[in-house]
């Protein structure tokens, strides 16, 4: 077994900082929970505010951006001065990739991490992303590292952890093992209760299609077996964007030509594969500032120094992008945007009745211009009804939120989703405004509804209807029984003047398989075209 070299102080410092930011990220994610009687703190979206890609794409696609996103300009300035230290020291996804890379070191042949031409691919990805955004689609924002990590943890990793906890605690509780008088649940139940009440949002939380989200996330991690920090080097559009700003940083790598013997050991543990031409060349746009090179040099010939950008740039090599590549990427982005957008639904020919957007969501094209599918709204939804779309909004709306009333309705006294949306794809409405927003309209399936179809009393939907004046009312109606008797019972109706489409009725309908009352998107406030009734 090969022993690793002891880490130097700078490496330990970097790892400490990375871990701190990762824990901060996870902490903010865990604290992203509904707050009874209030809205979650704005600070919970901190990492999105620091994401220049989210700012750029929102600005390009929607021609506007929430002021909080302007905090990302700090990262831009820092990158201009220090290079891509965001990637090397801050980005929580980068930290996970760094850790995964290290764990997968034994599977790769040890070799100097030389710059490869393929690393320019992330700039082309960025170009394609910007073009799609300009054409009104945030689809490739699926690749934004902060959104990617947030979505993966909120809808897949955390719920999977919750499943493990619930299953373990549940089986311990049921089997009640122990020694003598002492029972194991005395230990497991308090832990479980803490997690249930203070960490998890709601019991048995699960998200539709989370397996796909998890697979995508695990794939990005697995690629580290091919190259160290594969995602960060080759794919990440935020890395590409920051690389552009790291063109001529103040903090530069200096190689002492007198001691350098081109052994390339400096490149052995390089995160960004920023060395080139033996050890002498350095590509600042690829450097993540991990400083492993300073440790790696046996001659202590590699240092980082501050030097004004107008000084000589003898050994720094800019990333050379080809015009052909950029035009190709732009064309690909445009083709993707047009291809994804050219569906009957996106063109306004059809409306998907199942696409019930959260209250305050913008009208569909505007919504897709802003939503980066980060999953914040799904994480915070107290009923768990906000779920990632698969194809309900077209491929362009992959993993954007929709309400699935069968899983959870829209809580009447809650407006959290709009207040956590980092790009204001869902507007942060005051509670009283949110309670007037209609996200759909409930209607009965009289062929299934118990009092109509089977002559049984029910009215659970009416009981749960949360509007102050109930949108579901009932009249006495008749049901002809088989033996000729006529039964009089209460039969429910929907009053469209009061229904907000919250879906609590659908959620509690005793016909669990296919509820006899369903919410469809028709009548949603956000879309003047999707209205069934004559106004007035």
């Amino acid at each position, binding site marked *: 077994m090969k022993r690793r070299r002891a880490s130097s102080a700078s490496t330990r410092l970097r790892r400490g900082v990375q871990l701190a930011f990762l824990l901060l990220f996870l902490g903010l994610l865990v604290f992203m929970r509904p707050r009874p009687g209030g809205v979650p703190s704005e600070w919970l979206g901190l990492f999105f505010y620091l994401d220049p890609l989210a700012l750029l794409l929102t600005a390009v696609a929607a021609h506007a951006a929430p002021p909080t996103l302007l905090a990302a300009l700090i990262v831009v300035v820092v990158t201009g001065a220090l290079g891509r230290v965001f990637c090397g020291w801050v980005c929580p996804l980068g930290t996970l990739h760094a850790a995964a890379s290290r764990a997968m070191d034994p599977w790769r042949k040890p070799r100097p991490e030389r710059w490869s031409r393929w690393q320019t691919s992330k700039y082309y990805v960025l170009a394609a992303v910007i073009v799609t955004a300009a054409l009104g689609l945030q689809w490739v924002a699926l690749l934004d590292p902060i959104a990617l990590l947030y979505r993966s943890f909120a809808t897949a990793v955390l719920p999977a952890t919750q499943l493990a906890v619930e299953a373990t605690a549940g089986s311990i509780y049921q089997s009640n093992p122990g020694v003598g008088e002492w029972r194991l649940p005395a230990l497991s139940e308090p832990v479980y209760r803490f997690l*249930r009440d203070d960490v998890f949002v709601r019991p048995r939380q699960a998200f539709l299609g989370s397996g796909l989200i998890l697979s995508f996330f695990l794939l990005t991690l697995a690629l580290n077996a091919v190259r160290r920090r594969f995602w960060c080097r080759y794919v990440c559009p935020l890395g590409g964007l920051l690389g552009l700003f790291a063109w001529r940083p103040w903090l530069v790598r200096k190689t002492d030509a007198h001691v350098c013997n081109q052994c390339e050991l400096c490149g052995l543990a390089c995160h960004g594969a920023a060395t080139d031409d033996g050890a002498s060349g350095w590509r600042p746009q690829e450097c993540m500032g991990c400083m492993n090179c300073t440790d790696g040099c046996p001659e202590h010939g590699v240092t980082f120094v501050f030097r004004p950008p107008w000084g000589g740039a003898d050994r720094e090599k800019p990333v050379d992008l080809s015009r052909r590549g950029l035009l190709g990427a732009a064309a690909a982005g445009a083709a993707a945007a047009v291809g994804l957008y050219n569906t009957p639904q996106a063109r306004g020919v059809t409306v998907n009745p199942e696409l019930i957007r959260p209250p305050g969501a913008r009208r569909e094209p505007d919504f897709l211009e802003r939503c980066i599918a980060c999953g914040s709204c799904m994480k915070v939804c107290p009923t768990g009804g906000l779920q990632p779309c698969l194809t309900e909004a077209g491929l362009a709306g992959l993993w954007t939120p929709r309400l699935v009333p069968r899983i959870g309705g829209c809580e009447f006294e809650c407006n959290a989703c709009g207040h956590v949306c980092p790009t204001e794809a869902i507007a942060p409405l005051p509670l009283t405004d949110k309670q007037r927003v209609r996200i759909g309209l409930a209607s009965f399936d009289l062929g299934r509804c118990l009092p109509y179809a089977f002559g049984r009393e*029910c009215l659970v939907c009416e009981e749960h209807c949360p509007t102050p004046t*109930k949108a579901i009312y009932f009249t006495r109606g008749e049901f002809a029984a088989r033996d000729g008797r006529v039964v009089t019972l209460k039969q429910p109706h929907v009053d469209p003047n009061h229904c907000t489409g919250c879906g609590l009725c659908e959620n509690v309908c005793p016909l669990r398989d296919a509820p006899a009352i369903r919410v469809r998107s028709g009548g949603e406030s956000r879309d003047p075209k999707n209205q069934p009734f004559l106004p007035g």
Partner: protein
Amino acid sequence: MSRIQTRRRFMLDSAALGVAALAAPRFAPAGPTDVPVDMSIARWKPPAPSAALPDAMAARLAEAAIVQLGGMSRFVRRGDVVWIKPNIGWNRKPEHAANTHPHVVAQLVRMCQEAGAKTVKVGDNPCNDPKQCYENSGIAPAARALGAEIVFLDRDRFRNMAIGGKRLKQHPVYPELVECDLVINVPVCKHHGETEVSLCMKNYMGVVEDRGEFHQDLPATITDLTRFMKPRLCVLDATRMLVANGPTGGRLDDVRPMFTVAAGTDIVALDAFGCELLGHKPESISTVAAGRDAGLGRTDYRALSLKETELS
């Protein structure tokens, strides 16, 4: 060790009280002095007709109702574990009257503690998100401040129990709740679309899971549940009443001040009283009539040993 004892004691007590409750109206001589009080009503006469109910007065009404009934020590023994079961069904504020008044609950917590209860638990199985219901109803903060244990009914901890009713044979019930020495049933007096009223018997819907189907026969299922729960003490909160758009409410126009708290050992009698407050004849309400027909109590509550008081 102590758990076995208390459970046995609970069952014996329940059986004894059940026999007594059934036998009392038939065989006991109706003397006002030698029978315990079955039911008590406390009302507040506001200084002005438009006066709002002070929180402290809600607590005083609850206190007066229990004291008239013989005090909490009649029901709670030193070392008991008591479960207070308010209606925390909905994510609404106290003024909406969809849930029990938090200060009625708090007063009961206090009185149980003074009577020597080891633990006082407060919990319900809400229809909306439990965390939001507990906080926004004001009940969890008020009870927590007094040191009560706030319990969330865990969906994975319900256990199928033999209900042995007419309609419900087996049903998932929350074990921790039925294993307590005493369950105090503290509903809010309010309107309900399907059953016209939601009172003490209906409040037991909050001790079970999978209750959506109950609506197909609420009188029978509620009666079955009530018999299973063997009510010993119910406190009906009519400090203010939701009179329309129940049981959820949300419109202040639908809330009427009533400044009344009733307590008693006869659940049907309390429900009958609640029906009258809401403007119904008890016999016309199917759930209450079903409880009476099942022998769970009597609707003519005035025939019971009844005490009334008016606070000012």
